[in-house]
């Protein structure tokens, strides 16, 4: 059994089902990130693990012990809140030591633990300050310190960085990774920022509409998404989706027509059994490239479009093209790649293209699981 085992868990608030049949394994020491759009139930799932929210159905176990009915404080979990939730009338020392004081530890024990935690977080000089006299990043560190001193089995973070400015967020992100490496404790982290999720996660759990859409290593989700939602959610700029019509499949692949308003191609995916009909091609911006007039290549489909927007980032640029059927595609290109309003030709690397059924599920080839 995994370190944390979430099995068939659901959550119902009143009459609404917020979480639906959640199954998830978390290994000891893993950095797990829950990511998904606002309102998809990430916080609710995290709070159920912490014990602050009841489990409506299913079980959550930590180290083989079902914790559904265990008091939050006894689960060995510590949580860092988005709002930090520091006690405003207490100094940093008192905030960090609150849990230990509630557990009636000795003064020496508390002093040693707090010193250790605040040393790691560089809070030594701020011990006598109250939260009102701390900056956002410092408050964040105090909140983390309060979690560390309890030496929990699991750290839970609910969007801990969203109140910080961009620069500080990057810095704190690095500090968190460092902290995870040093402590080796299991961490579960909630964010709706997929970049944050990609950089932090050992295991990334993409959620939407109260369900886990896919869980796995960030790059696995990036390269091999299970459905159109995950494909579109992971990666920035987003994956391009082109509507097409499937007309048939044979040993060389699936034949598609009407791609982006007229292109025909054979996607090299074999072993698919679906009826003819509308499908969606997914292709990442880095698998598109601008080509010059007349150039063709066998495994690429070349489409024509008008350049709508060019985002210059210095080293590279993102070119947004409108295809004839007004689908907007984005491609990653070098500097000075396109001129707004001009027509450009774009080649799609069909080897890297993914295929999604009309209901959004991925159509995988080569005898892989079909749904």
């Amino acid at each position, binding site marked *: 059994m995994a370190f944390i085992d979430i099995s068939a868990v659901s959550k119902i608030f009143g009459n609404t089902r917020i979480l639906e049949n959640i199954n998830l394994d978390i290994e000891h020491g893993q950095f797990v990130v829950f990511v998904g759009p606002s309102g998809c139930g990430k916080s609710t799932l995290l709070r159920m693990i912490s014990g602050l929210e009841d489990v409506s159905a299913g079980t959550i176990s930590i180290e083989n012990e079902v914790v559904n009915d265990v008091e*939050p404080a006894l689960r060995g979990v510590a*949580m860092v*809140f988005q709002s930090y*939730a520091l*006690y405003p*009338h207490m100094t940093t020392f008192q905030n960090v030591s609150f849990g230990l004081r*509630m557990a009636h530890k000795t003064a020496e024990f508390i002093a040693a633990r707090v010193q250790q935690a605040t040393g790691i977080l560089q809070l030594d000089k701020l011990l006598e300050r109250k939260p009102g006299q701390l900056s956002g990043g410092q408050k964040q560190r105090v909140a983390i310190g309060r979690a560390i001193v*309890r030496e929990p089995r699991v750290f839970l973070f609910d969007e801990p960085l969203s109140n910080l400015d961009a620069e500080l967020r990057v810095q704190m992100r690095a500090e968190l990774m460092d902290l995870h490496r040093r402590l080796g404790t299991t961490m579960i982290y909630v964010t709706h920022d997929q970049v944050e999720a990609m950089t932090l996660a050992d295991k990334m759990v993409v959620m939407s509409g109260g369900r886990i859409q896919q869980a796995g290593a960030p790059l696995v989700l990036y390269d091999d998404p299970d459905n159109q939602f995950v494909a579109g959610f992971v990666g920035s700029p987003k994956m391009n989706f082109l509507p097409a019509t499937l007309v048939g499949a044979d040993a060389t692949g699936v034949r598609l027509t009407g791609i982006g308003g007229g292109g025909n191609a054979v996607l090299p995916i074999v072993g698919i059994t679906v009826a003819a009909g509308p499908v969606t091609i997914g292709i990442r911006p880095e698998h598109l490239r601008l080509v010059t007039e007349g150039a063709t290549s066998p495994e690429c489909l070349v489409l024509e479009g008008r350049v709508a927007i060019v985002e210059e980032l210095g080293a590279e640029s993102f070119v947004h093209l409108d295809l004839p059927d007004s689908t907007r595609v984005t491609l990653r290109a070098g500097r000075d790649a396109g001129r707004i309003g001009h027509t450009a030709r774009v080649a799609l690397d069909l080897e890297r293209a993914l295929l999604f059924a009309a209901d959004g599920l991925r159509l995988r080839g080569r005898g892989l699981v079909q749904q």
Partner: protein
Amino acid sequence: MSRTTALRGPVTVWTVLKWTLAIAIAIVAVFPIWWMFNVVFSQPGEPVSLNPRLWPTSLSAGIDKIRMIFTETGYLGAYFISITYALLTIVGVLLIASLAAFEFSLFKFPGRRIMFGIVMLALMVPTAVTIIPTYLLTSRLGWLNTMQGLVVPGLASAFGLFMLVQFMRAVPKEMIEAARLDGAGHFQIYWHVALPLCSNAMITLAILTFIQTWGNYMWPLIIGTRTEMYTVGQVVGMFNSPLSHHTVDTVMTANLLAAIPPLLFFLIFQRKIVEGIAMSGTKG
């Protein structure tokens, strides 16, 4: 235009009117108190003679009167009763109101809204309506002429609950949850987190309770029929009564002594009182 007026901004008709009004109100409010001082610290009869004075003339005459009142009447005992009554009521009201507000504002339990509604209804019932049943109950408990009879009926303060609930609602839920995860029990969360966070509201409630108990005349009058249970209010009432054989000077001294504690209280907590009244007014 001079420099100072320029710095303070232009003097408009409105400013003049405002200040005139403020000063007029201040004179009306302060004069009776000043007149008490004047009468007490003068030779008997002097301020009201044919040739009246607006300022005190004799410190020793005043001290004599005060000494007389403390030694020859039950005033000192009444002071003790009043202060005990006020302090016990404050402690009780703060404790009960804050415990109840903690539950009502931060936790969900069956019947919460209905119970809170009933308590709030109590705010709309005038004391005069409840005073007879309360008296009957207190008397049946055998609490007439006792300190508990004086204090206990005043401990459940619907107003105090209402005010503290407004404040505690503002305590972020996450802070309570953080404390819960930190292993704090229900009472520890109340004591270490919720209570310190509304210390301002608690001070305000303490002040308002003091003002109310010190000035409470009706209930002590009804419950305390024996002289040793008289509060300052009642003793002063006796001095003031038409059949009392005290002179104006003595009556004024008794009144002055009754006014001093709230006056001191007000001077010390002036700022908090103004803030508190403003808060309890707008927050509701």
